[in-house]
């Protein structure tokens, strides 16, 4: 007889009397399994009680647990007494974290292996078969539940009194909006406040002075500060100009070689930016027009500027036109000149939108 039919047959048999004193504990376990449609078809101790194998495995498991105790104690000792405070150079503190990880890891691994050995090797092996009752959907129950729910609908009488349903929906719709309103209303922020998406820190305040270009430490820059072929990251010389408050303002000031500068000027003139450069100096936004990373790797020989995030490459001598990679728009150029004191200033703000592209960018 196949086990399946045997199993089915077992469902039909009389349940055992579990109070029968002749039953062993395992008999009761099997009876319980039967009642859950489980057949324990194979049950076999892996080690016999009192054998050498059992004693050996017991020692192995105990050994694992003792290793855990040792490692955990070591963890505590290291945690408390090992020098942990950071010291520059070669201090013992370098080993603090590794030692903590090592002792904690060993402690946890040993307890894990101990439990695994206990479960896998010392406990009896078994094969049980449980019925899934797959495909035995209780059709009757389905009908009853379905009818009950339909009856509930009848009781409510929404069908007969459609006005109730409609008015309830009409009443609840604004309530849902009420729940969403504070969240949306609180979070929403007008993106074009103060024209912020189209201006940078170089925008001249009304009736004010032209903004100076400054270094990271805030000092203004003279043309002689940058050697030929060199470049410098510059910022608007305003309050908090060198900070993330003006994350769209960092600019790359490049001192081009003569021939490259001529090429750049010609390119500038082609697009009506004839007066954007000052001498052989040109300034481009450092914020990539693709995803906003600073495009900061300048290759002097080829006049290419590379953004390390997604490898967009811009040809500086051709108005910083993107020539490779995912960027689709040139880096905006800052019109610059030198003021009466000999420092670089921005003639005006950027005339193109700085930073990553968006829907309403003209």
């Amino acid at each position, binding site marked *: *007889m196949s*086990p399946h039919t045997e*199993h089915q047959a077992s469902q039909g048999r009389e349940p055992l009397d579990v109070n029968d004193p002749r039953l062993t504990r395992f008999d009761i376990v099997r009876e319980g399994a039967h009642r*859950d449609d*489980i057949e324990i078809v*194979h049950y076999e101790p892996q080690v016999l009680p009192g054998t050498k194998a059992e004693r050996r495995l017991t020692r192995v498991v105990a050994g694992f647990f003792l290793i855990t105790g040792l490692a955990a104690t070591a963890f505590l000792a290291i945690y408390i007494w090992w020098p942990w*405070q*950071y010291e*520059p150079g070669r201090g013992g503190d370098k080993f603090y*974290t590794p030692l*903590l*990880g*090592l002792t*904690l890891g060993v402690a*946890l*691994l040993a307890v*894990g*292996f101990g*439990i*695994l*050995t206990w*479960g896998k090797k010392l*406990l*009896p*092996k078994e*094969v*049980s*078969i*449980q019925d*899934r*009752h*797959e*495909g035995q959907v209780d059709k009757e129950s389905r009908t009853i539940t379905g009818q009950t729910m339909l009856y509930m609908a009848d009781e409510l009488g929404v069908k007969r009194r459609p006005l109730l349903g409609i008015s309830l929906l009409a009443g609840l719709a604004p309530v849902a909006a009420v729940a969403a309103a504070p969240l949306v209303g609180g979070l*929403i*922020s007008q*993106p074009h406040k103060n024209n*912020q998406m189209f201006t940078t820190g170089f925008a001249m305040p009304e009736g004010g002075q032209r903004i100076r270009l400054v270094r990271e430490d805030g000092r203004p820059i003279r043309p002689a500060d940058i050697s030929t072929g060199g470049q410098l990251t510059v*910022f608007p010389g305003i309050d908090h100009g060198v900070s*993330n408050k*003006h*994350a769209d303002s960092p600019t790359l000031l490049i001192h081009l070689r003569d021939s490259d500068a001529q090429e750049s000027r010609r390119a500038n003139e082609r697009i009506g930016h004839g007066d954007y450069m000052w001498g052989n100096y040109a300034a481009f936004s450092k914020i990539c027009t693709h*995803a*906003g*990373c600073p495009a*900061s*790797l300048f290759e002097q020989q080829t006049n290419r500027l590379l953004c*390390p*995030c*997604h*490898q*967009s490459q811009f040809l500086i001598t051709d108005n910083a036109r993107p020539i490779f*990679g995912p*960027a689709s728009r040139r880096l905006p150029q800052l019109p610059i000149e030198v003021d009466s004191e000999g420092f670089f200033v921005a003639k005006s703000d950027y005339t193109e939108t700085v*930073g*990553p*592209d*968006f*829907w*309403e*960018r003209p």
Partner: protein
Amino acid sequence: MKRRKFDLAATPGKAAAGVDDRFAVATPLRKLLNKVFPDHWSFLLGEIALFSFVVLLLTGVFLTFFFEPAMTEVVYDGSYAPLQGTPMSAAYASSLDISFDVRGGLVMRQMHHWAALLFMAAIVVHMLRIFFTGAFRKPRETNWIIGSLLFWVGFLAGFTGYSLPDDGLSGTGLRIASAIMLSIPVIGSWVTSSIFGGEFPGTIIISRFFIAHVLLIPGLLVALISVHLGLVFTQKHTQWPGPGRTNNNVVGERMFPRYALKQGGFFMVVFGVIALMGGLFQINPIWLFGPYEAWVVSAASQPDWYVMFLDGSTRLMPAWEISIPLGDGYVIPPLFWPTVVLPGILVGLSTMYPFLEARQRKDYRSHNLLERPRDAPARTAVGAMAVAFYIVLTLSGANDVIADKFQISLNAMTWAGRIGLLVAPPLAYYVTYRLCLGLQQHDREVLAHGVETGIIRRMPDGRFVEVHQPLSASNGHADGHGQLDYVGWVVPKKMNRLGALGPAIRGFFYPIEKPVEAPVSPGHPPVEARPEREEVGSGESRH
């Protein structure tokens, strides 16, 4: 004085009876203790994700005691000398404090990060197991969908988490995230400015990410994981085909005590491995990156591994900008496609897959038996295609590092990725499909003719033939071979595998051998189940 009798041995029994009187737990508890689980190593992959999640919760709670989610500018005066006196956000300063000035803080931080990486890795590998064995089929489509969502919610948890320290690397990631939101047509700038509270970076994003990372997203994860496990529990686990296993039963071990012990031990092992990694392997050394400054970045700025495929897709995307010449003009930037549309398509395709496959195979039955990947060549090939697609993208996410280490042109790497993305998936499909068919063929050959023995025999007419060891006794076939049906499980291919076929059930109370539902695969007619399964013998003649 008469002492009250106190029977210590009877106390637990009495207490248990008392509990049962009040809560009637005996029957449900028995059902739980008795529940049968099938056992296979590949069923433990999801557990790794679950256990990593527990470690994430434990270490994460520790970290919240010391982390300050604020972008207020402070001047660092902690013990890490190279950064002393540097202005930075409070978030970054407190992350440095966790690393240097909280005793044992660094090991906790690193364990948290490694556990997150392991969590995502286990989710992906578990998902591959589910996919390639067809475990997502009816009735488990819902759990497949929840699983796919878990990947994306885990992705968000990871991204919001590694953005919190506000270091140079994570700030760059945040910058890119803001650009991605900006790229959404029509509402992009509104979404970005609403989330960041104004123009990037604003002053509030870290505290918003913090509450998302420690409350909203973990809450969602806990909810999804609970439903996921609950469904596994009520729908009962799938099992591999094999002796005695049918679509209508579960063959395995009762949950308690052995199965539960093994789970507990496995949890400790996963926990231990994370502890070792957290202590011994450095991860995200934020003190080397410095505070986030919008103008500073370095090459080899890679996100965590599970984000790299999106970084790769962004790098490979050609600079295709769509301009709409209406009014002042509108733009759909190239960034929109690889970072918003692509993930959208991936979510849609992965969640819809069970239904698409059922429709394509016209198979609307319930399946509790797993399929070997070779028995569903089309699915396996589609999976290989997806894996190839993912690998090309992930490698492209590191293409600058590869270009640097192997002295390859960066632009060549980008082009290789672009071409690879188009060529590799179809190629993977074709190769996998052929491999599956070949493996199927070989299974049938072995069943029909026996195992190759490596013994070459010379025939009287001078031919050489290899001697095959038949798997079953002769049943009157002309060639003296018996015929065995394929039952969807491992066929022994080597002599020393004979008799080692799957988990052997010897039968303690009675032998259990029953044919199982044979999977239907293209190219082979459906195999009729036989009433009795042949005993797998040594092949020696027994007439």
